[in-house]
């Protein structure tokens, strides 16, 4: 188990890369740290590894406080984004390096390296140097090196981001299976929400050195706690439209929508953000109540579906506070065959049961205690 208490890391320049962060990662869990560039993911991982000394707070691994333990004694293995394979050693020596440090006799460590390599289908490459390997092979060697020393935890810093799109998908499934087989606690840093959702048992979404939400992939996908999380999670960005409570309903981008139960406590005129995923927006060629009227601006093929970007003109009445003067943009995913033509006028109806309402950037839940004031 890895637990972090009040962890803060300030860099000399005054940058606070991690900010009073608390986190518990369970034994055997596959845990993803997700967030945009610069949010502190790498710093957090490095602090767990012991490569950075926290300014404040404690790190415990397996119940033991390791805040002051040097990295080599924490019994964790880290895979860097650039893999950090030693270019002057062949694959065997790279994999066996941690064992060499532990003074495992040469014959034994070579045997163990070969065994681990075989497990990752690297048996044929043992005599090559990293420079002679493809990206995917390098990634597996880096994994093998991490595995060979049987650590208590794996720390992965964007190990897939150097692979090309196709390899990345394959490596993802491979990694997921491997972790299940080894059952070793794994912390996985990524900026790709798809990767995080697909791989992790739990995901932490970070921003500015803080954790915005922790939960299972389904939780963070379906009920993102803030607009930040909402916009970050999902293979197409969620539609987040400013609106306001008006006459017992919501007025959003020119459409009049029913007031969700969660928002019942909001006063008239309160500004909200209305969120709905493009997957939960249905298009129809004819006007419908509770739908945004717009014009098809962009059509993107997603394979089995299309992503349609609509331009919704500004309301004739007073625009809701905060909306762009030029109107809003609404995206919808339509299944194969159902895509409209470019420039066509269409109506986009969100599925209300899937819509989320944010007030003061907080997701309103059934008991809107904060919003009621």
């Amino acid at each position, binding site marked *: 188990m890895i637990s972090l208490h009040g962890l803060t890391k300030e860099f000399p320049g005054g940058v606070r890369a991690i900010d009073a962060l608390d986190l518990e990662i369970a034994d055997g869990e596959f845990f993803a740290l997700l967030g945009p560039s610069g949010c502190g993911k790498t710093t957090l991982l490095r602090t767990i590894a012991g490569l950075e000394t926290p300014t404040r707070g404690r790190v415990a691994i397996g119940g033991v406080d390791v805040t002051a333990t040097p990295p080599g004694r924490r019994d964790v293995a880290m895979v860097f984004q650039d893999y950090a394979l030693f270019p002057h050693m062949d694959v065997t020596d790279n994999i066996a390096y941690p064992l060499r440090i532990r003074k495992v006799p040469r014959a034994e460590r070579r045997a163990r390296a070969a065994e681990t390599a075989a497990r990752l289908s690297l048996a044929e490459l043992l005599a090559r140097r990293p420079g002679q390997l*493809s990206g995917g092979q390098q990634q597996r060697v880096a994994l093998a090196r991490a595995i060979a020393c049987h650590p208590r935890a794996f720390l992965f810093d964007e190990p897939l*981001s150097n692979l090309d799109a196709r390899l990345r998908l394959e490596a993802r499934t491979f990694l997921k299976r491997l972790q299940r087989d080894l059952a070793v606690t794994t912390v996985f840093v990524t900026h790709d929400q798809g990767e995080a959702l697909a791989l992790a048992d739990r995901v932490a979404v970070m921003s500015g050195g803080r954790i915005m939400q922790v939960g299972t992939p389904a939780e963070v996908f379906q009920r993102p706690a803030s607009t930040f999380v909402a916009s970050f999670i999902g293979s197409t960005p969620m539609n987040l439209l400013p609106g306001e409570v008006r006459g017992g309903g919501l007025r959003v981008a020119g459409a009049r929508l029913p007031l969700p139960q969660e928002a019942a406590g909001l006063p008239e005129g309160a500004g909200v953000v209305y969120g709905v995923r493009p997957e939960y927006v249905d298009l129809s060629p004819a006007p419908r109540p509770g739908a945004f009227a717009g014009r098809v601006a962009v059509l993107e093929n997603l394979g089995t579906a299309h992503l349609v970007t609509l331009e919704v003109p500004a309301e004739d009445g007073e625009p809701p506070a905060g909306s762009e003067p030029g109107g809003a943009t609404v995206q919808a995913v339509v299944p194969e065959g159902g895509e409209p033509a470019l420039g066509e006028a269409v109506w986009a109806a969100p599925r209300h049961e899937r819509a989320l309402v944010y007030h003061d950037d907080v997701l309103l839940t059934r008991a809107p205690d904060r919003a009621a004031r």
Partner: protein
Amino acid sequence: MTSDPSGLGRGGAAALVLPALVLIGVFLVFPALWTIYLGLTDYRLTGLAAADPQVVGPANYLDALGDERFLGSTWLSVQYVLGSAVIGQACLGFAIAWLVRDRRGPLRRVVEGVVLLSWILPGSVVAYLWIALLDRDGGTLNALLNTPGAAWLLDHPMLSLVVFNTWRGTAFSMMLYAAALESVPPSHLETARLAGASAFQQLRDVVLPRIRGHVLTNLLLISLWTFNDFTPFLITAGGPEGASETLPVYVYIVALRDGELGVGAAVSFLILAVNLVFALVYLRLLRARGRDADVPAPARAATRTAA
């Protein structure tokens, strides 16, 4: 980058630096300070002043600064440095590095090999080779150019030395620039080419701004080395009539032939001061660079590795 990626800590770092510092302290700093002290005395290798050297204060320095021979030597040294290091070695080294940059194969190896050879051959041998090359009567150069009797070393002593030192030292600049050019992303050059930039425009707009740090470091090192280069003595012995008496030759003559070690030491210190001026100029230029050339980090390290 973190402040301590290797986990050395201050103590570990000190332990690693210490042996070098001790050696430098004993065999470099200590003699250097002693030399500077000698510069304040009338110390001579022999004679009465050897038995009982007197501190004469800044007299040696003032004398040297008022001596036109010293000033002449300084001017010759500056010519030597500007001509052979800054213009000769740096430019020729750059030209070679630039033209071989994307060549592989024998031509590049031969060119680099020959250039490096002239760098690593011992100075005394090399000096003799150049005397043989430039000799008035039997010199190879005169035989080739069919200019019998042309006294290169007498009529153009500094020019000869500048050419010589260019020959001798280009290798370092060539190697350094070759490495520097590798750090210029090809995409930058190609962007300029696509915009229609000529080779000169590419150099001016893309390459030079990018490798300015390398250029200045290189200039700093080769200027320093050229300033202290003693090989000219082996070729012209400072002649004719002092026309190629650069500062190190001047010091040699003052300190060894005339035995005036105090004065020699003072002049050595003045050489250091001239070096310092050069270094400061380079550092200033370097600092100016620091402001504008934060190399852009393309958002994320793009190193997808091709199989």
